[in-house]
């Protein structure tokens, strides 16, 4: 039963990874930007939520909204002020900019909040669970995060495939110069993309912080790895792949933890490596994309 439990917990954990990774995948898909600051932005989202609750007494459930909106707005600024300009300079400049952000964010957080965790408690919800069988319980909160990430990914999918703006976004991903000829300003598409990416990662960061009970400045260095591994395992350009990738990584970590307490990270990396070796396009990847 321990193993079944590990499997179930892994699936639940994967939800957060998937939600965090969807924005990374989206930004890469539309702008070819590998956002190295994605993990730190996730943690920043957690900080916004935790700080709101701790210092301003904002109700805990509302902190998720505040954090999502705040980082969405930050995404607009980052795109307009930094990434748009960087993209004009050269192919690798945006990468450097995001690397810079990934250095600035945790250090700025340390300056403001010190290295101690800022707590974000969710009270009884944190421990409430449903007993499925002896030795197998599903926590309400992990279940909630999985449901939330399925919602986010479904929402993203519907946006991209069922709306005109989503079609325009995919067209821009195909050919950013040609969309201009039909009256679409590709920079507006980029701005919206980054707003969505940072909004979703902030939500993921908030849920992550709630799950951990708090957040510290340098956790982004780890979460960015999880996000990249999720995208690679699932396969680029497929949102359902991203969900599968998150779940695969979650299971690997959770089963690894079952084997030995110091194994979860290693197990995750090993699964990631195995996918890279045996199925480099990812579980749901469509092979080489143009």
């Amino acid at each position, binding site marked *: 039963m321990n193993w079944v439990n590990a499997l179930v917990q892994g699936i639940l954990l994967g939800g957060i990874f998937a939600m965090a990774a969807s924005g990374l995948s989206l930004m890469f898909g539309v702008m070819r930007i590998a956002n190295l600051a994605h993990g730190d932005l996730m943690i920043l989202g957690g900080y916004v939520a935790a700080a709101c609750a701790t210092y301003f007494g904002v109700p805990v459930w509302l902190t998720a909204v505040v954090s999502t909106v705040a980082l969405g707005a930050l995404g607009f600024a980052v795109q307009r002020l930094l990434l748009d300009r960087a993209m004009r300079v050269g192919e690798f400049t945006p990468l450097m900019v995001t690397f810079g952000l990934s250095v600035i964010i945790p250090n700025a957080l340390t300056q403001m909040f010190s290295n101690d965790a800022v707590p974000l408690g969710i009270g009884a919800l944190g421990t409430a669970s449903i007993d499925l069988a002896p030795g197998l319980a599903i926590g309400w909160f992990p279940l909630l995060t999985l449901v939330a990430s399925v919602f986010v990914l479904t929402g993203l999918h519907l946006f991209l495939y069922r709306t*005109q703006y989503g079609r*325009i976004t995919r*067209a821009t991903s195909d050919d950013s*110069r*040609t969309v201009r000829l*039909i*009256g679409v300003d590709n920079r507006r598409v980029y701005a919206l993309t980054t707003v969505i990416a940072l909004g979703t990662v902030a939500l993921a960061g908030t849920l992550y912080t709630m799950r951990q009970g708090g957040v510290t400045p340098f956790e982004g260095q780890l979460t960015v790895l999880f996000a990249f591994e999720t995208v690679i395992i699932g396969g680029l350009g497929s949102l359902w792949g991203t969900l599968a990738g998150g779940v695969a990584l979650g299971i690997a970590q959770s089963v690894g933890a079952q084997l030995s307490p110091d194994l979860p990270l290693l197990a995750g990396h090993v699964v990631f490596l195995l996918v890279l070796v045996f199925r480099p396009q990812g579980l749901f990847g469509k092979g080489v994309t*143009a």
Partner: protein
Amino acid sequence: MNLLHLDSVDAGYGDFQALFGVGLTVAEGELLALVGANGAGKTTLLRTIAGELSPFRGSVCFAGGDVTALPDVRRARLGIGLVPEGRRLFGSLTVEENLQVGAATGRSGPWNLATIYDLMPLVADRRDRKAAHLSGGEQQAVAIARALMGNPRLLLLDEVSLGLAPVVVDRLYASLPDIRANGMTVVLVEQDLTRTFEVADRIACVLEGRIVLTGAAGELTRDQVTAAYFGTSEVVS
């Protein structure tokens, strides 16, 4: 009334100048054909009109306003539609999605999915295919249809027939009268002189970045155009 007017336009890429003092006027509802050898500057000229390229000097006026400083996005919304060389479809989107995205100019007019499918049954037939999986002729038809979806006032067609079988090109050209029926102004680049004379109201010959001959299609002879095409000194008659 003149829809498009270019005045002494110099344009090019970086240090390379491709157009020299080009002046050109296109009347509303007219079909102007640009003729010239490869590398003469026809594509550069279309790109300059569409705003993909901004000229070094000179001005571009469209529908009574100076659009020289306007980027391609704004010009598309004003009604300049370019069917670019190489078609440049959105490969991962279906044919229908390509057309829907074409409507992003936000302009209203006679063209929508229904009228396009009516005009081009072939495109209607392939509506659910990914654009990347189409044949060259199908892609070209979709590229034209996508530009029409934006309801342009001026349609720029760059080498529609490039790399296509003559019978396929015939089919594409067969839709031109219907496209023009609503008073659409068209500037097209075509290598085939016979075809050019069949469809054009006026012909402009481009040679080494300059317009060396313009005239009504009915008043020019093939020999005049051929001479201008190759740059042989005087007209043989």
